[in-house]
Protein backbone atom coordinates (compact mmCIF):
# COMPACT_ATOMS: atom_id res chain seq x y z
CA UNK A 1 0.00 0.00 0.00
CA UNK A 2 1.22 3.43 -0.93
CA UNK A 3 0.77 6.34 1.50
CA UNK A 4 1.48 10.03 0.92
CA UNK A 5 2.07 12.69 3.56
CA UNK A 6 1.62 16.25 2.30
CA UNK A 7 3.82 18.71 4.12
CA UNK A 8 3.54 22.46 4.39
CA UNK A 9 6.76 23.85 5.86
CA UNK A 10 5.72 26.29 8.56
CA UNK A 11 7.34 29.51 9.66
CA UNK A 12 8.16 29.93 13.32
CA UNK A 13 5.32 32.43 13.64
CA UNK A 14 6.73 34.36 16.59
CA UNK A 15 10.00 34.98 14.75
CA UNK A 16 8.12 37.01 12.11
CA UNK A 17 7.11 40.63 12.38
CA UNK A 18 5.00 43.09 10.46
CA UNK A 19 6.90 45.69 8.49
CA UNK A 20 4.58 48.68 8.42
CA UNK A 21 6.86 50.54 5.96
CA UNK A 22 6.53 47.77 3.38
CA UNK A 23 3.03 46.71 4.45
CA UNK A 24 4.00 43.05 4.58
CA UNK A 25 5.05 40.28 6.92
CA UNK A 26 8.80 40.04 7.31
CA UNK A 27 9.95 36.43 7.64
CA UNK A 28 13.67 37.08 7.16
CA UNK A 29 14.48 36.21 10.79
CA UNK A 30 12.26 33.12 10.83
CA UNK A 31 13.02 29.54 9.86
CA UNK A 32 10.69 26.92 8.41
CA UNK A 33 10.04 23.66 10.22
CA UNK A 34 8.26 20.37 9.75
CA UNK A 35 5.00 21.05 11.67
CA UNK A 36 3.98 18.78 14.55
CA UNK A 37 0.75 17.66 12.85
CA UNK A 38 2.67 16.51 9.75
CA UNK A 39 5.20 14.65 11.94
CA UNK A 40 2.28 12.96 13.66
CA UNK A 41 0.92 12.21 10.16
CA UNK A 42 4.13 10.33 9.34
CA UNK A 43 3.87 8.42 12.64
CA UNK A 44 0.25 7.44 11.89
CA UNK A 45 1.18 6.57 8.30
CA UNK A 46 3.94 4.24 9.60
CA UNK A 47 1.35 2.42 11.75
CA UNK A 48 -0.68 1.57 8.61
CA UNK A 49 2.06 -0.89 7.47
CA UNK A 50 2.58 0.79 4.11
CA UNK A 51 5.01 -0.36 1.44
CA UNK A 52 6.04 3.21 0.84
CA UNK A 53 5.57 6.58 2.61
CA UNK A 54 5.94 9.41 0.13
CA UNK A 55 6.53 12.86 1.63
CA UNK A 56 5.30 15.57 -0.74
CA UNK A 57 5.80 19.30 -0.41
CA UNK A 58 5.28 22.35 -2.62
CA UNK A 59 8.17 24.45 -1.45
CA UNK A 60 11.32 26.26 -2.53
CA UNK A 61 14.62 24.45 -2.88
CA UNK A 62 15.85 26.44 0.13
CA UNK A 63 13.31 24.65 2.35
CA UNK A 64 14.24 21.18 1.14
CA UNK A 65 15.53 20.40 4.65
CA UNK A 66 11.92 20.09 5.80
CA UNK A 67 11.47 17.11 3.49
CA UNK A 68 14.69 15.61 4.86
CA UNK A 69 13.26 16.03 8.38
CA UNK A 70 10.30 13.97 7.14
CA UNK A 71 12.71 11.28 5.90
CA UNK A 72 14.39 11.24 9.30
CA UNK A 73 11.12 10.31 11.02
CA UNK A 74 9.96 7.68 8.53
CA UNK A 75 9.23 8.96 4.98
CA UNK A 76 10.79 6.60 2.43
CA UNK A 77 10.47 8.76 -0.70
CA UNK A 78 10.71 12.54 -1.01
CA UNK A 79 9.03 14.62 -3.71
CA UNK A 80 9.35 18.38 -3.96
CA UNK A 81 6.92 20.22 -6.21
CA UNK A 82 8.39 23.12 -8.10
CA UNK A 83 5.97 25.68 -9.41
CA UNK A 84 5.48 29.37 -9.70
CA UNK A 85 5.07 29.94 -5.98
CA UNK A 86 2.68 32.58 -4.72
CA UNK A 87 3.82 34.59 -1.71
CA UNK A 88 3.84 32.21 1.24
CA UNK A 89 1.10 33.76 3.34
CA UNK A 90 -1.22 34.54 0.43
CA UNK A 91 -1.36 30.86 -0.50
CA UNK A 92 -4.77 30.15 -1.93
CA UNK A 93 -6.01 26.72 -0.72
CA UNK A 94 -7.73 26.09 -4.05
CA UNK A 95 -4.53 26.61 -6.04
CA UNK A 96 -2.49 24.51 -3.59
CA UNK A 97 -5.10 21.74 -3.67
CA UNK A 98 -5.15 21.62 -7.48
CA UNK A 99 -1.37 21.26 -7.63
CA UNK A 100 -1.27 18.56 -4.93
CA UNK A 101 -4.23 16.66 -6.44
CA UNK A 102 -2.48 16.58 -9.80
CA UNK A 103 0.66 15.07 -8.28
CA UNK A 104 -1.29 12.65 -6.06
CA UNK A 105 -3.23 11.37 -9.09
CA UNK A 106 0.05 10.38 -10.68
CA UNK A 107 1.35 8.69 -7.49
CA UNK A 108 -1.96 6.92 -6.74
CA UNK A 109 -1.78 6.54 -2.93
CA UNK A 110 -4.51 4.75 -0.99
CA UNK A 111 -4.07 7.04 2.00
CA UNK A 112 -3.10 10.72 2.00
CA UNK A 113 -2.19 12.53 5.22
CA UNK A 114 -2.27 16.28 5.88
CA UNK A 115 -1.73 18.40 8.98
CA UNK A 116 -5.05 19.71 10.26
CA UNK A 117 -4.22 23.34 9.51
CA UNK A 118 -1.06 25.30 8.93
CA UNK A 119 0.00 28.02 11.37
CA UNK A 120 0.23 30.52 8.49
CA UNK A 121 -2.87 30.25 6.34
CA UNK A 122 -4.81 28.35 8.96
CA UNK A 123 -7.78 27.68 6.69
CA UNK A 124 -7.69 23.90 7.19
CA UNK A 125 -9.11 23.63 3.67
CA UNK A 126 -6.43 21.89 1.61
CA UNK A 127 -7.04 18.37 2.97
CA UNK A 128 -10.84 18.49 2.43
CA UNK A 129 -10.37 20.09 -1.01
CA UNK A 130 -7.91 17.42 -2.17
CA UNK A 131 -10.27 14.70 -0.86
CA UNK A 132 -13.09 16.17 -2.98
CA UNK A 133 -10.88 16.51 -6.05
CA UNK A 134 -9.67 12.89 -5.80
CA UNK A 135 -13.08 11.50 -4.75
CA UNK A 136 -11.54 10.02 -1.56
CA UNK A 137 -13.35 9.73 1.79
CA UNK A 138 -12.35 12.51 4.19
CA UNK A 139 -11.37 11.68 7.78
CA UNK A 140 -10.75 15.13 9.30
CA UNK A 141 -8.88 16.03 12.52
CA UNK A 142 -7.92 12.45 13.36
CA UNK A 143 -6.31 11.60 16.66
CA UNK A 144 -6.35 7.79 16.31
CA UNK A 145 -6.34 5.52 13.29
CA UNK A 146 -6.17 1.82 12.53
CA UNK A 147 -6.53 -0.26 9.37
CA UNK A 148 -7.87 -3.73 8.73
CA UNK A 149 -7.60 -4.53 5.02
CA UNK A 150 -9.35 -1.67 3.24
CA UNK A 151 -11.38 -0.64 6.32
CA UNK A 152 -9.99 2.33 8.21
CA UNK A 153 -11.29 3.01 11.73
CA UNK A 154 -10.71 6.45 13.19
CA UNK A 155 -11.33 8.80 16.10
CA UNK A 156 -11.43 12.48 15.35
CA UNK A 157 -12.26 15.78 17.01
CA UNK A 158 -15.12 17.97 15.93
CA UNK A 159 -15.86 21.22 17.73
CA UNK A 160 -14.62 19.80 21.03
CA UNK A 161 -16.42 16.43 20.72
CA UNK A 162 -14.78 13.13 19.95
CA UNK A 163 -16.27 11.26 17.00
CA UNK A 164 -15.38 7.74 15.98
CA UNK A 165 -16.19 5.91 12.77
CA UNK A 166 -14.90 4.05 9.76
CA UNK A 167 -14.46 4.36 6.00
CA UNK A 168 -13.11 2.29 3.13
CA UNK A 169 -9.88 3.10 1.33
CA UNK A 170 -8.90 5.34 -0.38
CA UNK A 171 -9.02 8.06 2.26
CA UNK A 172 -7.63 11.52 2.99
CA UNK A 173 -6.73 11.96 6.66
CA UNK A 174 -6.08 15.29 8.30
CA UNK A 175 -4.17 14.93 11.57
CA UNK A 176 -4.98 16.96 14.67
CA UNK A 177 -2.04 18.01 16.90
CA UNK A 178 -3.83 16.32 19.83
CA UNK A 179 -2.93 12.96 18.22
CA UNK A 180 0.02 12.77 20.60
CA UNK A 181 3.70 13.60 20.74
CA UNK A 182 5.62 12.91 17.55
CA UNK A 183 8.50 10.45 17.57
CA UNK A 184 11.99 11.90 17.54
CA UNK A 185 14.30 10.88 14.70
CA UNK A 186 16.78 8.12 15.41
CA UNK A 187 20.52 8.57 14.54
CA UNK A 188 20.01 6.00 11.77
CA UNK A 189 17.00 7.95 10.50
CA UNK A 190 19.01 11.17 10.40
CA UNK A 191 21.83 9.46 8.46
CA UNK A 192 19.29 8.01 6.00
CA UNK A 193 17.62 11.42 5.59
CA UNK A 194 20.88 13.17 4.67
CA UNK A 195 21.53 10.72 1.84
CA UNK A 196 17.90 10.27 0.69
CA UNK A 197 17.34 11.13 -2.99
CA UNK A 198 14.89 13.93 -3.60
CA UNK A 199 12.67 14.01 -6.69
CA UNK A 200 11.66 17.37 -8.11
CA UNK A 201 8.39 17.54 -10.07
CA UNK A 202 7.35 20.63 -11.99
CA UNK A 203 3.63 21.42 -12.03
CA UNK A 204 2.13 24.59 -13.43
CA UNK A 205 -0.27 26.12 -10.95
CA UNK A 206 -3.46 27.82 -12.07
CA UNK A 207 -3.52 31.54 -11.34
CA UNK A 208 -5.05 32.45 -8.00
CA UNK A 209 -8.33 34.33 -8.19
CA UNK A 210 -7.93 35.73 -4.71
CA UNK A 211 -6.99 39.37 -4.86
CA UNK A 212 -4.93 40.40 -1.81
CA UNK A 213 -5.89 43.99 -0.90
CA UNK A 214 -3.95 44.45 2.32
CA UNK A 215 -2.21 42.76 5.21
CA UNK A 216 -1.85 44.16 8.68
CA UNK A 217 -1.03 43.26 12.22
CA UNK A 218 -3.33 42.41 15.10
CA UNK A 219 -0.53 43.13 17.59
CA UNK A 220 -1.68 44.87 20.74
CA UNK A 221 -1.45 48.63 20.39
CA UNK A 222 -2.88 49.71 23.75
CA UNK A 223 -5.91 48.68 25.69
CA UNK A 224 -9.08 50.57 26.58
CA UNK A 225 -8.57 50.17 30.36
CA UNK A 226 -12.25 50.66 31.07
CA UNK A 227 -13.21 50.12 34.72
CA UNK A 228 -16.64 48.55 35.20
CA UNK A 229 -18.25 49.33 38.53
CA UNK A 230 -21.23 47.99 40.47
CA UNK A 231 -22.30 44.77 42.13
CA UNK A 232 -20.80 41.54 40.76
CA UNK A 233 -24.00 40.85 38.80
CA UNK A 234 -24.08 44.39 37.37
CA UNK A 235 -20.40 44.25 36.39
CA UNK A 236 -20.90 40.91 34.66
CA UNK A 237 -23.95 42.29 32.80
CA UNK A 238 -21.96 45.34 31.63
CA UNK A 239 -19.02 43.16 30.61
CA UNK A 240 -21.29 40.85 28.62
CA UNK A 241 -22.76 43.81 26.72
CA UNK A 242 -19.28 45.20 25.96
CA UNK A 243 -17.96 41.84 24.81
CA UNK A 244 -20.99 41.31 22.58
CA UNK A 245 -20.40 44.71 20.99
CA UNK A 246 -16.77 43.77 20.27
CA UNK A 247 -17.76 40.39 18.84
CA UNK A 248 -15.69 38.63 21.52
CA UNK A 249 -18.57 36.37 22.59
Amino acid at each position, binding site marked *: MKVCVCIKPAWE*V*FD*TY*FSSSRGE*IDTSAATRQLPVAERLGIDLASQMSPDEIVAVSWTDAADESVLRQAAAVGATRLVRIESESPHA*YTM*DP*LVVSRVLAELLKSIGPEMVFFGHRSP*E*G*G*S*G*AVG*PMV*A*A*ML*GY*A*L*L*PRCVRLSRDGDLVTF*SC*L*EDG*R*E*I*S*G*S*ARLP*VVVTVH*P*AAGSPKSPSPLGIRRAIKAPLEVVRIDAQRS*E*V*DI*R*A*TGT*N*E*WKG*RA*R*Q*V*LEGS*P*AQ*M*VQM*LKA*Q*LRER*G*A*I
Partner: protein
Amino acid sequence: MSMPIVVKDKCNGCGDCVVVCPFFALELVDNVVTIAESCLDCGVCVSACSAGALVYEGMDVTQSGGGVWYLAPGGDIEAAGTARYLADEWGKSAAAVVFNENTLPDSGSDLVLVIPGGNARALAAAIQHEKPGAVLAPDRDQTRDLLAQTAALLNVNFFSGVTSLQPVYGKDSVEVVRPIFLGRYYVRVQAQSAPVLATLQKGALLPVRAMATTQAPRILDIKPAVWPEVTRQESGRYYMPGLEEADIILSGGPAIGREGFELLNAVAQRMGAVVAGSKEAVQAGFLPPERMVDASTGKRFAPSLYIAFGIDGSPGHNAAITLARTVVAVSDRADTNLAASADFILTGDIRAIMEAMLLE
Protein backbone atom coordinates in the same frame (compact mmCIF):
# COMPACT_ATOMS: atom_id res chain seq x y z
CA MET B 1 -30.23 18.13 -13.11
CA SER B 2 -29.20 17.37 -16.67
CA MET B 3 -26.34 15.17 -17.82
CA PRO B 4 -22.95 16.87 -18.23
CA ILE B 5 -22.11 17.93 -21.77
CA VAL B 6 -18.79 17.48 -23.53
CA VAL B 7 -17.02 20.55 -24.92
CA LYS B 8 -15.18 18.67 -27.67
CA ASP B 9 -12.67 21.45 -28.40
CA LYS B 10 -11.46 21.36 -24.81
CA CYS B 11 -11.21 17.58 -24.40
CA ASN B 12 -7.55 16.52 -24.50
CA GLY B 13 -8.28 12.80 -24.27
CA CYS B 14 -6.47 12.37 -20.94
CA GLY B 15 -9.08 9.85 -19.74
CA ASP B 16 -9.19 11.13 -16.13
CA CYS B 17 -12.99 11.27 -16.31
CA VAL B 18 -13.24 7.72 -17.66
CA VAL B 19 -11.21 6.37 -14.74
CA VAL B 20 -13.23 8.14 -12.02
CA CYS B 21 -16.74 7.41 -13.37
CA PRO B 22 -18.34 5.01 -10.86
CA PHE B 23 -20.94 3.89 -13.45
CA PHE B 24 -18.58 3.14 -16.37
CA ALA B 25 -20.65 5.59 -18.41
CA LEU B 26 -17.73 7.35 -20.10
CA GLU B 27 -15.40 6.19 -22.85
CA LEU B 28 -12.92 7.75 -25.21
CA VAL B 29 -13.86 7.67 -28.88
CA ASP B 30 -11.23 9.12 -31.22
CA ASN B 31 -9.54 10.66 -28.17
CA VAL B 32 -12.69 12.56 -27.16
CA VAL B 33 -14.88 11.52 -24.23
CA THR B 34 -18.47 10.38 -24.84
CA ILE B 35 -21.18 9.88 -22.23
CA ALA B 36 -23.51 6.88 -22.33
CA GLU B 37 -27.15 6.75 -21.18
CA SER B 38 -26.05 4.89 -18.04
CA CYS B 39 -24.82 8.25 -16.68
CA LEU B 40 -26.50 9.00 -13.32
CA ASP B 41 -25.40 12.67 -13.20
CA CYS B 42 -23.22 12.21 -10.14
CA GLY B 43 -20.86 14.93 -11.38
CA VAL B 44 -17.62 13.12 -10.43
CA CYS B 45 -16.33 13.49 -14.00
CA VAL B 46 -16.99 17.25 -14.05
CA SER B 47 -14.72 17.87 -11.08
CA ALA B 48 -12.12 15.38 -12.36
CA CYS B 49 -11.78 17.18 -15.69
CA SER B 50 -8.92 19.66 -15.40
CA ALA B 51 -9.43 20.83 -19.01
CA GLY B 52 -12.95 22.13 -18.39
CA ALA B 53 -14.31 19.87 -21.14
CA LEU B 54 -17.17 18.48 -19.06
CA VAL B 55 -19.73 21.03 -17.89
CA TYR B 56 -23.37 21.25 -16.94
CA GLU B 57 -25.32 23.07 -19.60
CA GLY B 58 -26.53 26.52 -18.62
CA MET B 59 -24.83 26.44 -15.24
CA ASP B 60 -22.40 29.27 -15.22
CA VAL B 61 -21.62 29.96 -11.62
CA THR B 62 -20.19 33.35 -12.45
CA GLN B 63 -23.73 34.54 -13.20
CA SER B 64 -24.95 34.66 -9.64
CA GLY B 65 -28.66 35.20 -9.39
CA GLY B 66 -29.97 33.25 -6.45
CA GLY B 67 -29.20 35.60 -3.57
CA VAL B 68 -27.27 34.76 -0.44
CA TRP B 69 -27.47 31.35 1.20
CA TYR B 70 -26.54 30.49 4.72
CA LEU B 71 -26.14 26.97 6.02
CA ALA B 72 -28.49 26.26 8.89
CA PRO B 73 -27.80 22.66 9.87
CA GLY B 74 -29.98 21.68 12.81
CA GLY B 75 -32.06 24.85 12.34
CA ASP B 76 -29.16 26.99 13.52
CA ILE B 77 -29.50 30.60 12.25
CA GLU B 78 -26.17 32.04 13.45
CA ALA B 79 -25.14 33.20 9.96
CA ALA B 80 -28.58 34.57 9.08
CA GLY B 81 -27.82 38.16 10.12
CA THR B 82 -24.78 38.43 7.84
CA ALA B 83 -26.62 36.73 4.98
CA ARG B 84 -29.51 39.18 5.37
CA TYR B 85 -27.11 42.16 5.40
CA LEU B 86 -25.33 41.00 2.24
CA ALA B 87 -28.61 40.11 0.50
CA ASP B 88 -30.03 43.55 1.29
CA GLU B 89 -26.88 45.24 -0.04
CA TRP B 90 -27.13 43.24 -3.26
CA GLY B 91 -30.93 43.61 -3.47
CA LYS B 92 -31.42 39.86 -3.40
CA SER B 93 -33.01 37.28 -1.13
CA ALA B 94 -31.50 35.48 1.88
CA ALA B 95 -32.14 31.76 1.97
CA ALA B 96 -31.57 29.25 4.75
CA VAL B 97 -30.18 25.92 3.55
CA VAL B 98 -30.96 22.76 5.49
CA PHE B 99 -30.30 19.12 4.69
CA ASN B 100 -33.27 17.67 6.47
CA GLU B 101 -36.92 18.78 6.47
CA ASN B 102 -37.13 18.16 10.21
CA THR B 103 -34.63 20.88 11.10
CA LEU B 104 -36.19 23.99 9.56
CA PRO B 105 -35.13 27.34 11.07
CA ASP B 106 -38.10 29.34 12.28
CA SER B 107 -36.91 32.82 11.31
CA GLY B 108 -34.25 34.94 9.65
CA SER B 109 -34.68 34.19 5.95
CA ASP B 110 -36.91 34.87 2.95
CA LEU B 111 -36.99 31.23 2.00
CA VAL B 112 -35.77 27.83 3.12
CA LEU B 113 -34.10 25.40 0.73
CA VAL B 114 -33.87 21.72 1.55
CA ILE B 115 -30.95 19.90 -0.07
CA PRO B 116 -31.38 16.15 0.39
CA GLY B 117 -28.17 14.31 1.16
CA GLY B 118 -26.26 17.14 2.73
CA ASN B 119 -22.88 16.21 1.30
CA ALA B 120 -20.56 18.44 -0.70
CA ARG B 121 -21.59 16.87 -4.01
CA ALA B 122 -25.29 17.61 -3.36
CA LEU B 123 -24.52 21.16 -2.20
CA ALA B 124 -22.30 21.79 -5.23
CA ALA B 125 -25.05 20.55 -7.56
CA ALA B 126 -27.61 22.78 -5.83
CA ILE B 127 -25.29 25.79 -6.14
CA GLN B 128 -24.72 25.07 -9.83
CA HIS B 129 -28.45 24.89 -10.31
CA GLU B 130 -29.60 27.88 -8.26
CA LYS B 131 -26.51 30.12 -8.64
CA PRO B 132 -26.39 31.97 -5.32
CA GLY B 133 -23.92 34.85 -5.06
CA ALA B 134 -22.58 33.69 -1.69
CA VAL B 135 -22.87 30.72 0.64
CA LEU B 136 -22.10 31.50 4.28
CA ALA B 137 -21.86 29.38 7.42
CA PRO B 138 -20.69 29.78 11.00
CA ASP B 139 -17.03 28.77 11.36
CA ARG B 140 -17.33 25.24 12.73
CA ASP B 141 -15.35 22.12 11.90
CA GLN B 142 -18.17 20.45 9.99
CA THR B 143 -19.22 23.51 7.98
CA ARG B 144 -15.58 24.28 7.16
CA ASP B 145 -15.04 20.77 5.77
CA LEU B 146 -18.29 20.87 3.82
CA LEU B 147 -17.70 24.27 2.22
CA ALA B 148 -14.03 23.51 1.45
CA GLN B 149 -15.06 20.34 -0.40
CA THR B 150 -17.90 22.14 -2.17
CA ALA B 151 -15.52 24.91 -3.26
CA ALA B 152 -13.14 22.30 -4.67
CA LEU B 153 -15.92 20.68 -6.71
CA LEU B 154 -17.03 24.06 -8.06
CA ASN B 155 -13.47 25.35 -8.54
CA VAL B 156 -14.28 28.55 -6.62
CA ASN B 157 -12.59 30.28 -3.70
CA PHE B 158 -13.28 29.42 -0.10
CA PHE B 159 -12.50 31.66 2.87
CA SER B 160 -12.52 30.19 6.36
CA GLY B 161 -12.50 31.93 9.72
CA VAL B 162 -13.61 35.27 8.26
CA THR B 163 -13.74 38.05 10.87
CA SER B 164 -15.26 40.75 8.66
CA LEU B 165 -17.21 40.67 5.41
CA GLN B 166 -18.22 43.64 3.26
CA PRO B 167 -19.88 43.78 -0.18
CA VAL B 168 -17.87 45.26 -3.03
CA TYR B 169 -20.06 47.91 -4.58
CA GLY B 170 -20.78 47.52 -8.27
CA LYS B 171 -19.85 43.84 -8.18
CA ASP B 172 -21.49 40.69 -6.84
CA SER B 173 -18.39 40.13 -4.80
CA VAL B 174 -17.22 40.58 -1.24
CA GLU B 175 -14.11 41.68 0.54
CA VAL B 176 -13.25 39.58 3.57
CA VAL B 177 -10.77 39.87 6.41
CA ARG B 178 -9.31 36.71 7.88
CA PRO B 179 -6.55 36.06 10.41
CA ILE B 180 -3.28 34.46 9.37
CA PHE B 181 -0.13 33.37 11.24
CA LEU B 182 -2.09 32.14 14.30
CA GLY B 183 -4.04 35.40 14.42
CA ARG B 184 -0.94 37.55 14.67
CA TYR B 185 -1.69 39.25 11.35
CA TYR B 186 -4.71 39.61 9.11
CA VAL B 187 -5.21 39.67 5.38
CA ARG B 188 -7.93 41.52 3.49
CA VAL B 189 -8.87 39.75 0.28
CA GLN B 190 -11.42 40.03 -2.49
CA ALA B 191 -12.87 37.03 -4.27
CA GLN B 192 -12.73 37.22 -8.05
CA SER B 193 -14.94 34.18 -8.65
CA ALA B 194 -18.57 33.53 -7.73
CA PRO B 195 -20.15 32.25 -5.64
CA VAL B 196 -18.20 33.26 -2.55
CA LEU B 197 -18.04 30.45 0.00
CA ALA B 198 -17.07 31.50 3.51
CA THR B 199 -17.25 30.44 7.14
CA LEU B 200 -17.69 33.29 9.59
CA GLN B 201 -16.13 33.83 13.00
CA LYS B 202 -17.86 35.82 15.71
CA GLY B 203 -16.76 39.24 14.45
CA ALA B 204 -18.45 38.65 11.10
CA LEU B 205 -21.66 37.18 12.50
CA LEU B 206 -24.18 40.02 12.61
CA PRO B 207 -27.25 39.96 14.89
CA VAL B 208 -30.19 38.09 13.41
CA ARG B 209 -33.27 40.16 12.73
CA ALA B 210 -36.41 38.34 13.80
CA MET B 211 -38.52 37.83 10.69
CA ALA B 212 -40.72 34.97 9.72
CA THR B 213 -39.96 32.98 6.60
CA THR B 214 -42.68 33.87 4.11
CA GLN B 215 -42.58 30.82 1.88
CA ALA B 216 -42.91 27.11 2.42
CA PRO B 217 -39.60 25.22 2.36
CA ARG B 218 -38.51 24.30 -1.17
CA ILE B 219 -36.97 20.87 -1.59
CA LEU B 220 -34.41 21.08 -4.39
CA ASP B 221 -34.64 18.33 -6.97
CA ILE B 222 -31.09 17.06 -6.60
CA LYS B 223 -30.55 13.40 -7.36
CA PRO B 224 -28.78 11.44 -4.59
CA ALA B 225 -25.12 12.14 -5.12
CA VAL B 226 -22.44 9.46 -5.05
CA TRP B 227 -20.07 10.38 -2.26
CA PRO B 228 -17.54 8.32 -0.29
CA GLU B 229 -19.31 6.90 2.74
CA VAL B 230 -17.92 7.62 6.21
CA THR B 231 -19.79 6.19 9.20
CA ARG B 232 -19.63 8.34 12.32
CA GLN B 233 -20.84 8.30 15.87
CA GLU B 234 -20.22 10.48 18.88
CA SER B 235 -18.13 8.83 21.57
CA GLY B 236 -19.62 11.08 24.26
CA ARG B 237 -16.15 12.29 25.19
CA TYR B 238 -15.23 15.95 25.13
CA TYR B 239 -11.89 17.43 24.28
CA MET B 240 -10.41 20.56 25.78
CA PRO B 241 -8.33 22.28 23.10
CA GLY B 242 -4.77 23.39 23.75
CA LEU B 243 -4.20 27.04 24.66
CA GLU B 244 -2.86 27.80 21.16
CA GLU B 245 -6.17 26.78 19.59
CA ALA B 246 -8.46 28.28 22.23
CA ASP B 247 -10.83 31.07 21.31
CA ILE B 248 -11.66 32.00 24.91
CA ILE B 249 -9.21 31.48 27.79
CA LEU B 250 -10.15 31.86 31.46
CA SER B 251 -7.02 32.10 33.52
CA GLY B 252 -6.50 32.05 37.28
CA GLY B 253 -3.80 33.09 39.70
CA PRO B 254 -2.85 31.27 42.92
CA ALA B 255 -5.02 33.63 44.98
CA ILE B 256 -8.25 32.01 43.80
CA GLY B 257 -7.25 28.65 45.32
CA ARG B 258 -8.35 25.14 44.42
CA GLU B 259 -12.04 25.95 44.95
CA GLY B 260 -11.67 28.95 42.69
CA PHE B 261 -10.27 26.75 39.91
CA GLU B 262 -13.19 24.34 40.32
CA LEU B 263 -15.56 27.27 39.89
CA LEU B 264 -13.48 28.50 36.96
CA ASN B 265 -13.87 25.11 35.27
CA ALA B 266 -17.64 25.35 35.64
CA VAL B 267 -17.69 28.87 34.14
CA ALA B 268 -15.40 27.71 31.31
CA GLN B 269 -17.67 24.79 30.48
CA ARG B 270 -20.61 27.17 30.31
CA MET B 271 -18.75 29.61 28.03
CA GLY B 272 -17.03 26.99 25.85
CA ALA B 273 -13.71 28.29 27.16
CA VAL B 274 -10.39 26.75 28.12
CA VAL B 275 -8.92 27.05 31.64
CA ALA B 276 -5.34 28.20 32.12
CA GLY B 277 -3.26 29.70 34.90
CA SER B 278 -0.34 31.95 35.72
CA LYS B 279 3.12 30.53 36.38
CA GLU B 280 2.50 30.85 40.13
CA ALA B 281 -0.79 28.90 39.86
CA VAL B 282 0.95 26.10 37.98
CA GLN B 283 3.81 26.07 40.50
CA ALA B 284 1.20 25.79 43.28
CA GLY B 285 -0.07 22.62 41.57
CA PHE B 286 -3.51 23.90 40.54
CA LEU B 287 -2.92 23.16 36.84
CA PRO B 288 -0.58 21.03 34.68
CA PRO B 289 2.40 22.84 33.05
CA GLU B 290 0.80 22.79 29.56
CA ARG B 291 -1.89 25.14 30.90
CA MET B 292 0.63 27.82 31.90
CA VAL B 293 0.35 31.32 30.45
CA ASP B 294 3.84 32.73 30.57
CA ALA B 295 6.28 33.89 27.91
CA SER B 296 9.00 31.69 29.46
CA THR B 297 7.27 28.69 27.83
CA GLY B 298 8.09 30.19 24.43
CA LYS B 299 4.39 30.30 23.64
CA ARG B 300 2.13 33.25 23.09
CA PHE B 301 -1.59 33.03 22.72
CA ALA B 302 -4.06 34.81 20.49
CA PRO B 303 -7.57 34.11 21.80
CA SER B 304 -10.38 36.48 20.99
CA LEU B 305 -11.06 36.78 24.74
CA TYR B 306 -8.74 36.36 27.73
CA ILE B 307 -10.17 36.77 31.23
CA ALA B 308 -7.71 36.74 34.14
CA PHE B 309 -8.98 36.09 37.67
CA GLY B 310 -6.71 37.13 40.49
CA ILE B 311 -3.62 37.57 38.33
CA ASP B 312 -1.40 40.56 39.10
CA GLY B 313 0.34 40.38 35.74
CA SER B 314 4.05 39.61 35.78
CA PRO B 315 5.98 40.80 32.69
CA GLY B 316 6.16 37.14 31.52
CA HIS B 317 2.41 36.68 31.84
CA ASN B 318 1.57 39.96 30.11
CA ALA B 319 4.00 39.25 27.25
CA ALA B 320 2.30 35.91 26.58
CA ILE B 321 -1.09 37.55 25.96
CA THR B 322 -0.24 40.59 23.85
CA LEU B 323 -2.03 38.98 20.88
CA ALA B 324 -5.30 38.45 22.74
CA ARG B 325 -7.99 40.53 21.07
CA THR B 326 -9.73 41.46 24.34
CA VAL B 327 -8.24 41.21 27.83
CA VAL B 328 -10.35 41.38 30.99
CA ALA B 329 -8.77 41.67 34.45
CA VAL B 330 -10.84 40.50 37.42
CA SER B 331 -9.13 41.30 40.69
CA ASP B 332 -9.72 42.45 44.24
CA ARG B 333 -7.75 45.64 43.49
CA ALA B 334 -7.42 47.95 40.51
CA ASP B 335 -3.71 48.80 40.74
CA THR B 336 -2.29 45.58 39.30
CA ASN B 337 0.14 45.41 36.36
CA LEU B 338 -2.45 43.49 34.36
CA ALA B 339 -5.16 46.10 34.98
CA ALA B 340 -2.82 48.67 33.41
CA SER B 341 -2.89 46.71 30.14
CA ALA B 342 -6.43 45.31 30.10
CA ASP B 343 -9.47 46.37 28.09
CA PHE B 344 -11.92 45.90 30.96
CA ILE B 345 -11.26 45.88 34.68
CA LEU B 346 -13.63 44.40 37.24
CA THR B 347 -12.70 44.84 40.89
CA GLY B 348 -14.35 43.24 43.90
CA ASP B 349 -14.85 39.80 45.39
CA ILE B 350 -13.39 37.50 42.69
CA ARG B 351 -15.45 34.50 43.78
CA ALA B 352 -18.70 36.53 43.70
CA ILE B 353 -17.87 37.73 40.17
CA MET B 354 -17.20 34.14 39.07
CA GLU B 355 -20.52 33.03 40.55
CA ALA B 356 -22.31 35.87 38.74
CA MET B 357 -20.68 34.69 35.48
CA LEU B 358 -21.89 31.19 36.15
CA LEU B 359 -25.46 32.45 36.50
CA GLU B 360 -25.34 34.52 33.29
